[in-house]
């Protein structure tokens, strides 16, 4: 009888998490790096953004949570899969009866776990040191949860699709990381989005990170801050549409371009 694809996917997820936890550098990087960034930016930029009493660290935290989805999904997978290709992990799996779907389920589970850990660390740190206010309304919590779910799925799919681009594992980080960092500058993570030149805003609006940061601001900043956004409101449904389009495009690209080996 054929082994169950979903069950093996979950088993792989468990295994991936185990491997992740055993690589001290990856745990430290995932957990500590965003918190350190938050600490630096929160300490340097003490001013307020707009007239609603929102501090820059609150604004920045919303952007960092959105970045967390991109780091743990897109960035992590687009770097890790080429390394696994180099190490022969994928080739070995290809020679077994495992379904590729199980492999991807495992990756999604790992991504989601890393993301929950990173976002929780940011939230705890933000609440303790930067006076972050958690949303109170039920509606905002619902929005937060679907942003997290849709955001990490979209991000992971794009990471899998992009994993075909780096030629080998050694160069993967050099190809992937600059893309993420540039998008962070353009998408309202390190700078206030509405202060950016409009060409930069329009460019960023093509990619998911801009929409994720906007979504997270809509969750964590006061409702009247919406008037400070470029569109003058949160554009919640537009956020969902962009993330869904990118997920679909990413799936098509991933199916066409995914490589089990470099030969």
């Amino acid at each position: 009888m054929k082994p169950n694809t979903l069950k093996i996917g979950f088993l792989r997820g468990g295994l991936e998490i185990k491997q992740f936890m055993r690589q001290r550098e990856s745990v430290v990087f995932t957990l500590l790096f965003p918190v350190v960034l938050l600490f630096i930016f929160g300490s340097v930029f003490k001013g307020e953004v707009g007239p609603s009493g929102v501090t820059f660290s609150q604004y920045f935290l919303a952007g960092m949570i959105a970045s967390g989805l991109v780091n743990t999904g897109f960035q992590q997978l687009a770097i890790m899969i080429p390394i696994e290709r180099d190490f022969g992990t994928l080739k070995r799996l290809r020679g077994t009866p495992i379904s590729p779907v199980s492999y991807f389920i495992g990756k999604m589970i790992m991504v989601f776990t890393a993301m929950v850990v990173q976002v929780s660390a940011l939230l705890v740190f933000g609440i303790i040191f930067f006076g972050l206010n958690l949303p109170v309304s039920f509606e905002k919590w619902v929005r937060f949860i679907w942003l997290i779910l849709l955001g990490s799925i979209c991000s992971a799919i794009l990471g899998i699709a992009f994993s075909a681009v780096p030629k080998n594992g050694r160069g993967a980080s050099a190809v992937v990381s600059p893309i993420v960092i540039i998008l962070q500058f353009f998408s309202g993570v390190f700078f206030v989005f509405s202060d950016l030149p409009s060409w930069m805003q329009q460019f960023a609006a093509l990619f998911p990170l801009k929409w994720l940061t906007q979504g997270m601001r809509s969750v964590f900043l006061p409702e009247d801050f919406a008037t400070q956004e470029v569109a003058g409101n949160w554009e919640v449904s537009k956020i969902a549409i962009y993330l869904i389009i990118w997920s679909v495009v990413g799936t098509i690209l991933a199916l066409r371009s995914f490589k089990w080996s470099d030969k």
Partner: protein
Amino acid sequence: MANDLGISVRGLTKTYKSKANGDKIAVGGIDLEVKIGEIFAILGPNGAGKTTTVEILEGYRDRDGGEVKVLGQDPAKLGNDSWAWRNRIGIVLQSTNDSQDLSVHETVHHFANYYSNPRDPDSVIHDVGLDEKRDARIQSLSGGQRRRLDVALGIIGNPEILFLDEPTTGFDPEARRAFWDLIRKLRDEGTTILLTTHYLDEAEALADRVAVIVDGKIIEVSTPENLGGRNTAKARINWFENGARQEIESDFPTDEVAKLATRFGGEVPELTVIRPSLEDIYLKMIGQL
């Protein structure tokens, strides 16, 4: 196709195209038949086309031409039930470096889940001699131990055919002996084994039949004993006479030695009688002697 064939290959060809270095013919028309239950070795120097051939049989590579059947299926046309075919084969690749952060026990147990009828993971770990390293992280294993783990993962699914690509490269002599015993044990349990190697003694020790491959072509298929006409080759008789070494070749060395003994009236100075070693024959076959 006859039912007792695990693998059959007809006219297999594969060329690697390269603009920079010109096209390279890796496999130039190969015919092979591997019977169920035998150990079949593909022996040849590095770059002869062994790995390309095996990776085509394993379903990793496309071929340019020829017919291939492995367990009755064409590995290039597996379609939706590829899992069912992969469920029946085991693959030990040439070099892998994965799962560094997992233990032997975790890895073998995990891979058992992929198959519908796996072997017992603990007894597989025992069979490959990794009991003591059961809880060790893979990154701490020696090269030979790592290779035995590869074999464990190759046989965990209880395969009907096991592919081994240069399995003992880099082993010390003792580890090789132990490894050979393991492979023979698998054969005795009914596993068909296709092995590539560039070690002649490995082919001689393990294989029921050997194919010698040079420059993408099979130049002979035989049992190790008969390879290159070794069993019928002339013996060389060698002695010292008139201030120089003398040598003759003969199909009847005993007669020649008797004649020499008569001529010398007893002891023949520095007499040796040699049959060509398998290595001599092999090196001659691959054009390096």
